[in-house]
């Protein structure tokens, strides 16, 4: 009983917290999340559009394209993130020149989340009224015009709420990546909070992560609502 009280006292004492380290870790987490979200957004939309167009197209060549894309998407979605980081070490080394620090985590973060987001994009695109696409075709629109002027704007609320979910998932992934040396709040919580048994540091890292997640959710909801004119 006494031990428990002692633990709690440490946790809320904040005596071990070095605020400059918290700041740096927060910056690294935000940095990793922002870069990974931006690339995930682009790659996910490209993949999602390929999945959507290939699944509805009548052209023969589209079947293998859909098959291959869907296979890759499912494959990378199925690999647990911590294993994916390890698997990608050689690739990361070549791409980023390092496997440590925030930059070392970014390739794995993108490759882990883009397939997930691609599926969300595909679902969003499938919800577009078929009649609107048909109307654009009846006006003589080509595929590019349909992508830019119909598919993307008409699915924008779904694309935004999808990237919100994905970004929050990415915050979690950066924490996992932190444990094996990527920096950020996960790294802080593990290296300082856990290994040195400074639970007040862990608590601070958790609170900061929660704040980041809430901000992402609120911003995502706001933008999704703003673009939705339905």
């Amino acid at each position, binding site marked *: 009983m006494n031990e428990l009280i002692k633990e709690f006292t440490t946790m809320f004492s904040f005596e071990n917290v070095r605020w400059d380290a918290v700041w740096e870790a927060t910056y690294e987490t935000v940095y990793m999340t922002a870069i990974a979200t931006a690339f995930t957004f682009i790659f996910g939309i490209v993949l999602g559009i390929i999945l959507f167009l290939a699944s509805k197209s009548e052209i023969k060549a589209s079947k293998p394209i859909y098959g291959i894309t869907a296979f890759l998407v499912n494959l990378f979605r199925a690999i647990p993130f911590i294993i994916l980081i390890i698997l990608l070490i050689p690739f990361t080394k070549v791409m980023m020149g390092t496997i440590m620090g925030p930059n070392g985590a970014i390739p794995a973060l993108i490759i882990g989340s883009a397939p997930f987001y691609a599926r969300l994009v595909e679902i969003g695109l499938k919800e577009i*009224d078929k*009649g609107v696409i048909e109307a654009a075709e*009846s*006006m*003589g629109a080509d595929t590019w*015009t349909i992508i830019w002027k119909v598919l993307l*704007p008409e699915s924008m609320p779904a694309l935004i709420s999808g990237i919100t979910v994905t970004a929050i998932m990415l915050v979690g992934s950066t924490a996992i990546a932190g444990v094996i040396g990527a920096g950020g709040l996960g790294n802080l919580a593990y290296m300082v909070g856990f290994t040195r048994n400074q639970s007040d540091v862990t608590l601070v890292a958790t609170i900061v992560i929660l704040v980041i997640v809430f901000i992402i959710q609120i911003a995502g909801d706001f933008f999704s609502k703003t673009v939705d004119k339905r």
Partner: protein
Amino acid sequence: MIDIRNVTKIFKTKSTDIRAVDDVSMNVTQGEIFGVIGYSGAGKSTLIRLFNGLEMPSSGDVVIGADVISSMSKPALRKKRQKVSMIFQHFNLLWSRTVAENISFPLEIAGVPKKERQKKVKELVDLVGLAGREDNYPSQLSGGQKQRVGIARALSNEPNVLLCDEATSALDPETTDEVLDLLVKIRDEMNLTIVLITHEMHVIRKICDRAAVMENGRIVETGPVLKLFQNPEHSVTKRFVKDDINDEETALSFDEVRELFPTSKILKFGFVGSQSKAPIVSQIVKKYDLDLNILSGNIKRTNNESYGHLFVAIDVNDETLQKLEAELSDHDVTVEVEDQ
């Protein structure tokens, strides 16, 4: 203007082939409003999509102006579609765009510069009576207003042909009439050729010059609208005409009359145009000294002529009835004995 030659469209499914359009031939002349009517599943939606190449025929040719739609290259077809535009039952507006932006969309596709787009949009907004609503989103409009946007959008590239896919089926009767009036107005002002499909006979009656009746992928009857109404030949046409004129209440009251006057015959006089105004019936009544009980009557307007029906109960023997029929048919009035 439009020539459909022996067009068949087969949809292959795993188990069977569906002949959605079956050996259809028809033509539409410049400036005409041509209607295709049929119950759902008759193949009319597929038929109208053959006109702008949204569906390609399995066999046969679709010719619009000088172009064979069914054998054009994709880029040429896309170009052609700017001149063969379409409006839809559910309007199919982009919710993410305002009224003005929706109308501007086909102009963007056609690569029209921004200045000209704005000018054209303004013209069209005025034409369809939506001035002041340019910056509204579709979700802020009523059904009728949405269809007006659809029409304005379809007109933005100054097409020669307008295809209407059940354009009024999602609208209430009053709004339907407004939209139909608008279609006639733009036909007259822009010298459009309009092809519309519908399952509502009054749409055909109100604005079409000619019409075709479709059943099971085939055109079973075609002709000028007045002729279809006056003298329908195929059973499907008869049903549509009957639906437009009779309602169930009339049929019910006939039953009552039969009960009250078992010896009476119920006759239906049909007349067209100028005869509808002459006092033929009263002349006949005097001449043959008949007791005549008027049950119901109506005069309907098609887009260029009126025609009407009169249901009467007369106690008359077969001999007089034949004389009566002969005399009336001299006046171009048709007589039918309603089934017991």
